[in-house]
């Protein structure tokens, strides 16, 4: 069989395009791998030079070589959990209102507005938190206005647009046939939403929540401005959420400028980066598993109850 010149040209073109696509796909993976290797290289000495028991210590005081990550972990945890507890219910309810109850003109007005909120620079929100929220929180009885709660409020506000917008998209994608089917049986509008629409949109909602959490956990600037940045472990007695904390991200940002490259402190900061990376990675893979594999299992479990 002989191949014509035109055919050869076509094959070459195909090969080049395929190669380009392959390269783009591979490069994304490569870049992630390189980032992780870089993090490991810079951060690994921390886990070698500083004993694990010390890393799990309760005091973060680099000047005295005390590298206890616990206060930072707890700081991040408090702020993130607080933000999620506030933002997820609020975001889901708003999305349900927009997607299922609001008249068209309201939806068309509110949806773009909410999406604009996502574009506000975090430093601006930090200002807002500092000037407006902090005094409010202090008036609520906290000893200072710069607390984990203040940070959680700001972060909740930052993740709301993501959660609302993606959840609303997910609700919109639920075919009207499902709603009709439920209404035609004699379900109320609320029963239709709760038992049919929300479960049908579940994977989209999970993604919305995860992206919201991702935004909250990785945020640095705004949090640094409003949480007080004291690396202490808040105690139950004085109100867990109403004391200053310092998050992992804020620690890295605040201290990176003043450490000597290659010092123990330096590598510990990268170590914190590794921990952050692992946490987000864990959240993402959990979400993926929940979204893809969960469907049949969850339905079955519900059915057996």
């Amino acid at each position: 069989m002989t191949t014509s010149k035109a055919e050869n040209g076509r094959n070459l073109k195909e090969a080049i395009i395929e190669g380009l696509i392959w390269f783009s796909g591979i490069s994304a993976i490569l870049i992630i791998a390189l980032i992780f290797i870089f993090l490991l290289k810079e951060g690994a000495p921390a886990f070698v030079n500083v004993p694990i028991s010390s890393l799990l210590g309760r005091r973060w005081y680099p000047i005295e070589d005390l590298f206890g990550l616990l206060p930072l972990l707890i700081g991040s945890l408090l702020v993130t959990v607080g933000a999620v507890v506030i933002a997820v219910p609020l975001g889901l309810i708003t999305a349900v209102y927009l997607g299922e109850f609001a008249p068209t003109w309201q939806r068309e007005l509110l949806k773009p507005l909410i999406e604009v909120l996502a574009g506000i620079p975090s430093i601006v929100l930090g200002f807002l938190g500092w000037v407006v929220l902090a005094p409010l929180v202090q008036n609520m009885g906290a000893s200072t206005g710069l607390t984990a709660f203040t940070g959680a409020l700001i972060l909740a506000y930052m993740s709301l647009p993501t959660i609302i917008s993606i959840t609303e998209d997910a609700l919109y994608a639920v075919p009207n046939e499902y709603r009709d089917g439920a209404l035609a049986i004699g379900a109320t509008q609320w029963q239709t939403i709760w038992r049919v629409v929300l479960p049908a949109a579940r994977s989209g909602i999970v993604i919305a929540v995860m992206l919201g959490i991702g935004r909250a956990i990785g945020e640095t600037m705004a949090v640094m401005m409003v949480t007080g940045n004291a690396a202490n472990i808040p105690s139950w007695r004085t109100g867990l959420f109403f004391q200053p904390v310092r998050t992992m991200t804020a620690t890295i940002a605040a201290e990176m400028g003043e450490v000597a490259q290659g010092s123990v402190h330096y590598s510990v900061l990268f170590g914190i980066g590794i921990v952050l990376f692992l946490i987000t990675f864990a959240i993402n893979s959990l979400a993926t598993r929940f979204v893809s594999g969960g469907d049949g299992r969850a339905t079955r479990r519900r059915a057996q109850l």
Partner: protein
Amino acid sequence: MENKIEVRQFNFYYGDFQALIDLNVPIRANQITALIGPSGCGKSTFLRSLNRMNDTISIARAEGEVLLDGKNIYDADVDVVDLRHRVGMVFQRPNPFPQSIYNNVAFGPRVLGTAKGSSLDDVVVESLKGAALWEEVQDKLYEPAQALNPGQQQRLCIARAIAVQPEVILMDEPCSALDPVATLRVEDLMRQLSKNYTIVIVTHNMQQAARASDWTGFFWLGRLVEFGKTGDLFTNPQEELTESYITGRQG
């Protein structure tokens, strides 16, 4: 013969457009009434007026009376949720919820709170048997309904509708997405169901109307041109328009 539903001087509008004009339709109890006519003639709109599914369209407006057991369903004191419990509906495209087969059938009893626990299990089994689906799904009740073929899905939707024991079942072209074999199964099923339920079916398929119904109404541009016993209407139509439609010259 008793009329389960009596439609009197019924007019229906989408905004300025009048979709149904001066309709008077008797729907006999425990019989199958078929509504035929070309696309856009208003037969689906009419069907959706019988359980007020058109309420979800904001610009829609109804005038006149639809008497269900003598009571106008458009009266202000009628609870539309209660109405749809009594007048169930099966749609053109099978629309099982993306949940398990069991949960689909159990949906109605659950939201209405009519059955729980083991009695709910009984209702599910009975409904699936009633919809002639039990044999095929008894081993996979907890598998997703979407895994069934379209014919099975449509029978699942019928099972879901009868699980709340309605009095009337409205079917909006229930077989248009099904192959001939599945279509015949649904028609057989309709025949069985008509012993206990009053059935109104909208169909594009005149053979189906002729085969499966007791009464037939022919719609044309929002009006009911002719209504009568299915045998009479198809063999000896009174109106010229009806004759030219059922013989395929018009529409």
